[in-house]
């Protein structure tokens, strides 16, 4: 028994902005879904099931919003699943949808992830006090800053590396019409001069709060054959989780991330990720996570990730472009951010990435993580169908 090959034949995003006051949550998700359908040249009637994801319900104040969104997503009379795996949810949602096709339960599936952060206040959503439990220390930056500091100590990376990543990603975002931050006057000096928020993380090295949605149409071999544009083929996908906090946890390079990447590479027949993978969309909400994840994902040896970044390898015209779209640093509708990584990977291998297209991208990795660096989801897509 073998799995059904899975192809991405449609991708749709909203223009991500700080506040979409002109649409409801339903209007926002429908916009992305319709663009994905248009890309695939399909209609609502072609969709067999809907899988949606977003980060905590408290971010908008709507409990189990799939119930209210059923109508807007054309799901009435169809199966609808709602995934929630913290910040990795956009990636996990796509993988759950993938399994519906790979397991031959459905032929064509709409998957979508979103966040409409302007409806509420994400900082409050993350800050509900619980007795006998450590609070998240002034938002996500407060939690992650010590891990960045640990990385710098461990590797001896100079403190200039973080600003290089932010400067790169914000410039890449200028080439992506859907990106939230379009800072036309960005300079490296401006990034370096921005206020320190959580030492060593500066204001310009953090992600924005965005409203936005991302949708994809996944289909089987027969569906891919009917696709009007080149499909992206799934070569490997995996999720891994580990506990939030425990004595043995390596917060700089969590084992769940390493194991997840290894599983994806095994499925996709990747022997040397640095050589065999053409580009990466990785989840970098704070700039220092680029060098950290380069090591965690096996693109650099331990302690060497920052050297790749510093030498320009991860630039759009570098040898291993990272976050061609501008990344989470330029666009962060939290629940959608993982799916945007997966969708951008698909756009690259389909040759549909527009101005931020990497020439000749054949195999691209999409990566997401969440919680206290404890949930990981990744997929590797290719321009060619999988051989096995």
């Amino acid at each position: 028994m073998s799995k059904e090959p899975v192809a991405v034949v449609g991708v749709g995003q909203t223009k991500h902005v700080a506040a979409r006051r002109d649409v409801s949550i339903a209007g926002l998700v429908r916009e992305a879904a319709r663009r994905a359908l248009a890309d695939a040249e399909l209609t609502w009637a072609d969709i067999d099931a809907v899988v949606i994801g977003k980060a905590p319900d408290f971010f908008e104040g709507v409990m189990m919003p799939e119930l209210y969104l059923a109508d807007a997503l054309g799901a009435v009379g169809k199966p609808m699943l709602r995934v929630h795996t913290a910040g990795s949810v956009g990636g996990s949602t796509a993988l759950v949808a993938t399994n519906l096709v790979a397991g031959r339960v459905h032929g064509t599936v709409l998957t979508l992830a979103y966040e409409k952060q302007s409806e509420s206040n994400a900082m409050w959503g993350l800050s509900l006090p619980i007795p006998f439990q450590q609070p998240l220390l002034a938002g996500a930056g407060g939690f992650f800053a010590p891990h960045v500091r640990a990385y710098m100590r461990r590797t001896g990376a100079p403190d200039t590396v973080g600003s290089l990543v932010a400067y790169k990603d914000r410039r890449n975002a200028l080439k992506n019409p859907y990106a939230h931050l379009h800072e036309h006057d960005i300079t490296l000096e401006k990034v370096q001069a921005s206020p320190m928020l959580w030492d060593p993380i500066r204001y310009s090295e953090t992600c924005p709060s965005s409203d936005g949605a991302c949708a994809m149409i996944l289909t089987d071999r027969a569906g891919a054959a009917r696709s009007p544009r080149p499909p992206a083929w799934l070569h490997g996908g995996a999720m891994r989780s580990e506990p939030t906090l425990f004595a043995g946890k390596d917060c700089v390079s969590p084992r769940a991330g390493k194991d997840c990447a290894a599983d994806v590479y095994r499925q996709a027949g990747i022997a040397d990720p640095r050589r065999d993978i053409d580009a990466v969309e990785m989840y970098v909400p704070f700039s220092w996570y680029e060098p950290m994840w380069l090591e965690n994902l096996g693109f650099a040896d331990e302690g060497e990730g920052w050297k790749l970044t510093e030498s320009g390898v991860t630039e759009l015209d570098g040898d291993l472009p990272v976050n061609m779209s501008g990344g989470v640093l330029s666009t962060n509708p939290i629940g959608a951010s993982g799916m945007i990584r997966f969708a951008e990977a698909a756009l690259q291998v389909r040759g549909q990435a527009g101005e931020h297209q990497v020439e000749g991208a054949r195999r691209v990795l999409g990566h997401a993580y969440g919680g206290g660096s404890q949930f990981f989801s990744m997929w590797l897509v290719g321009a060619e169908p999988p051989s096995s």
Partner: protein
Amino acid sequence: MRPIRDVAVIAFGQTDHRRTSDDLSEVEMLMPVLHEVLDRTGLKTSDIDFTCSGSTDYLAGRAFSFTMALDGVGAWPPISESHVEMDGAWALYEAWTKLLTGDADTALVYAYGKSSPGSVRDVLTRQLDPYYVAPLWPDSVALAALQARALIDAGDTDEPALAGVASRSRASAAANSHAQLRSPVDQGDYVVRPLRTGDCPPVGDGAAAVILAAGERARELCERPAWIRGIDHRIEAHSLGVRDLTDSPSTRLAAERAGAFDRPVDTAELHAPFTSQEVVLRKALRLADDVDVNPSGGALAANPVMVAGLVRIGEAAARIHRGTSDRALAHATSGPCLQQNLVAVLEGDPR
């Protein structure tokens, strides 16, 4: 549709469902149940290929509440794991699809929910359209009462018949040591007309866990696996104004896709928190009079929110494991007035 791979429920465990569990955290409530299903199969956490859970932050009152439960599972070394913000029945569905791909042979599924810290009637209003309906705070009993009124007006039932559903369910629960209400309950006063106290589910806390296994692995680990012959779920429009509340087309379609109508079932575990909803489901599922409906007592005897649907699948499977059923139907619901419904058909090997 016949699944491409045989997958079975091979173990089921649940807590004693209680009105309050002040003395326990969610993780403490869940842990004994996880150990129960692992012990029953002899599996260790490291033997499980995939783990999936169902719960909701709105009951826990905090974002990312499921992360603490994950710590309880023992996710070290790291595990392949996922979570749905839905009843555990949908977590089981996700796990089932994972097993169908062949990427996993065993799966642990769990769900938990504590309704006691707040007012679940108020909390569930937050499921409604956030712009037009939720600001009015129509609570879950009031919405169920609308449905009950529509049924009575349509001549599908009457108040004495509803009282009959209530007393039958609670009498059945006498044999279920986990149930919260295990003896006859006075029909009582109206909560929201036409629903009386007896027509409504108890509010309670609980957790449940299930282990799934594929093919030969299921036979090795369980004497009589409960094979999932079909499982499907469907959602309807959210607005009550555009639905016929006396019918459940989503349940009927899910049942059809799950193969429920191919041959009669002997048992049906229905997730009907209100007596009137059993009337709707019986009709949609075309259940014959000789089908044993909710021998566990159903959601009228224990309704831990986010868990009760998974418990229906577990109870149906447990009857097959024990040999008291050969072909059982299990149903789970979500949303106001049966908006979303899941149907699973379980079978034991011929005896």
